[in-house]
């Protein structure tokens, strides 16, 4: 029996230097429940250390471990991974591919927390830098570890694959394109008309608690799991992506 589940696949925690410190996994999950989201993804910039805490919190919300990777062209790509192990493999590749710029000042804004909102540590390497990995390579590595690769906020004029590369190459193997809250259904139809070959989803790109669920995507699936999301994106076995503009 297939059911509709509400998903928001782009949420930053306090590990991302641009997100507010209130974005602890516990508060994020609390807010997601208030907004009646069924599935969320934790997607920090080029890092994933707060996924552990999110995973230890009991709730009705399914957590997909994820990361927002900056490609060498400075385009953002969302990786959704089947489990924490595969995510951490990805994280170590990303870490090796980034210049280790240590910023004591920013470090205090890249916070690792536990499931009780307590500070566990800081990441001192600047996380918002570009990796040396080309977009095609990022997509390939995500797939190699069994993940889903989504082009982030393709409607934005910064850090979007469309802005950085002018257009999406034909052989770019994204599993979906993400549209931000800024763009309506009708506008997306115009901007993204050449990219019908990809499923379109909406995510909040939340940096503040109030942002969570400001837009979302509904999935017609059997249960809120990574595998079911994958089937929906591939349009298999009756699973569907239901996009609200």
């Amino acid at each position: 029996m297939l059911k509709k589940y509400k998903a928001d696949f782009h949420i930053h925690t306090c590990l991302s230097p641009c997100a507010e410190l209130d974005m602890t996994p516990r508060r994020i999950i609390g807010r997601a429940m208030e907004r009646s989201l069924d599935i969320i993804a934790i997607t920090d910039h080029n890092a994933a250390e707060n996924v552990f805490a999110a995973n230890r919190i009991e709730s009705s919300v399914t957590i997909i471990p994820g990361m927002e990777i900056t490609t060498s062209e400075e385009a953002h790509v969302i990786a959704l991974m089947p489990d924490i192990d595969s995510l951490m493999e990805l994280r170590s590749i990303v870490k090796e591919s980034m210049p280790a710029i240590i910023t004591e000042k920013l470090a205090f804004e890249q916070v690792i927390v536990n499931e009780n909102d307590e500070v566990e540590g800081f990441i001192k390497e600047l996380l918002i830098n570009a990796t040396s990995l080309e977009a095609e390579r990022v997509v390939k590595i995500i797939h190699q570890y069994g993940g889903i690769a989504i082009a982030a906020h393709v409607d934005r004029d910064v850090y979007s694959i469309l802005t950085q590369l002018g257009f999406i190459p034909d052989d770019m193997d994204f599993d979906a394109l993400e549209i931000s809250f800024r763009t309506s259904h009708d506008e997306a139809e115009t901007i993204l008309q050449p990219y019908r070959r990809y499923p379109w989803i909406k995510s909040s790109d939340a940096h503040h608690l109030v942002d969570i669920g400001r837009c979302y995507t509904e999935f017609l699936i059997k249960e809120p799991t990574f595998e079911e999301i994958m089937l929906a994106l591939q349009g298999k076995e009756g699973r569907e992506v239901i996009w609200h503009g």
Partner: protein
Amino acid sequence: MRVNDLRDILSLQVLTEGIPLDTEISGGYVSDLLSDVMANAKEGDIWITLQTHLNIVAVAAMKGIAGIIIVNGRRPDEETLKKASEEGIPLFSTRETAFVVAGKLYKALYAQEIQS
């Protein structure tokens, strides 16, 4: 001024072999956002960038770019070079920054205006 003259003035390394370098240069454009180049570069421009992605060739072909100078010692991969040869877009490499290359190009193109 032709692409060939520029190669000598800027001591550029030619990355694409066999492409005629006699195209007339009308100006230059500096940008790393390909969407911006698509919107604002003009035919006959030399494009100065640090992007090396395959798409630079497609954008250059679309806009009638006279040649692409890749700065900061960055190197495009084989696929980009192959595509450039197919499309007849000369690619050059230099260790210098976009600022220095643009300055030299501007001086070479508009020397008289600078002096006056």
